[in-house]
């Protein structure tokens, strides 16, 4: 079964100066490598980190140096997805990168104007950008979401867990499948994956998109809805 990660987070404060760029890149690489983030994804995060820091220092005005930049890197994983978030807060002039329209492409070199490409590159590298302005600070969250490849060890686990497989084959007790033709269900189930989820492992995390239906064959599932926790046992 693939390695699963709990939620992790690190934070760093640095002066709002261009000279810190290599330091913050090294900080990112140190932690992301330790968390087994792929080199490709680290390069994407590093690019966004460089673009945001360079942009706020260059265009943030005198107020940007009033307080240090705050960088936060966090990672959360479910069994099939990982979400890495880079958050950057600065005290410069308010600027919402999510409100900027994509730069129109130049049709010739003569028409090309340097600048405005950092945002294009960030939008291509990240899954999502989010912005808010509070306490006189710009807060930018850059989200990187990726799916895990199905591992062959998961398939072997499914074959070993015969009792669970039997339960999976007879799904008449699941309200969702009430009155559904068994032959159709069997065809769909051929493509399903049987998972053994360790205790306290999140199936879904806030901000994560989901394209799966989970059916609890045994054990307990807890859904946290704000302050309310709903517990379901099978």
């Amino acid at each position: 079964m693939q390695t699963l990660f709990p939620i992790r987070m690190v934070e760093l404060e640095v002066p709002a100066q261009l000279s810190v760029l290599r330091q913050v890149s090294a900080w990112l690489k140190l932690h992301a490598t330790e968390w087994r983030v792929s080199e490709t994804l680290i390069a994407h995060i590093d690019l966004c980190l460089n673009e945001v820091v360079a942009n706020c220092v260059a265009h943030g005005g005198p107020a940007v140096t009033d307080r240090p930049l705050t960088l936060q890197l966090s990672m959360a994983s479910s069994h099939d997805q990982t979400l890495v978030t880079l958050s950057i807060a600065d005290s410069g002039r308010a600027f919402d990168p999510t409100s900027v329209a994509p730069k129109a492409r130049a049709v010739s070199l003569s028409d090309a104007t340097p600048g405005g490409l950092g945002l294009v590159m960030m939008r291509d590298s990240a899954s999502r950008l989010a912005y808010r302005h509070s306490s006189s600070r710009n807060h930018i969250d850059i989200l990187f979401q990726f799916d895990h490849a199905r591992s062959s060890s998961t398939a072997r686990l499914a074959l070993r867990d015969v009792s669970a497989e039997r339960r999976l084959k007879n799904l008449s007790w699941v309200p969702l499948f009430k009155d559904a033709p068994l032959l159709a269900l069997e065809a769909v189930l051929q493509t399903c994956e049987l998972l053994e989820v360790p205790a306290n492992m999140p199936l879904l995390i806030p901000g994560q998109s989901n394209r799966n239906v989970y059916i609890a064959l045994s054990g307990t599932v807890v859904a946290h809805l704000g302050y309310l926790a709903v517990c379901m046992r099978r």
Partner: protein
Amino acid sequence: MPITFDDADEALRHIRLTGRLDMTGIDAISETFTELSVATHRQVIVDLSGVNFLVSFGIRELITNAKLIQQRGGRMIIFVGDNKAVLKTLETTGVDTLIPTFVNAAQADRAALE
């Protein structure tokens, strides 16, 4: 050196950039890059195959120098080799449509001499 060059002949110059082209890396090569680009050679092939990190300020340098070369009646060509990350960045920003970009060195040379 993160920037080197060689002159194939009086008309064609190869400029090779290597390493990390972040703000620090760009600061280190910017002046030399412009000096080499606007010298007497009309055609300039910029080799980015050894660049392992490229931020938007690096793209800005490429566009600025390509325009300077064009104003002198020459042309910049980019060679990326098998550097997929840099090629992707050039495609994402549309630079590959402004500055002819090649993965094959011989084709880049031919294009420069056309």
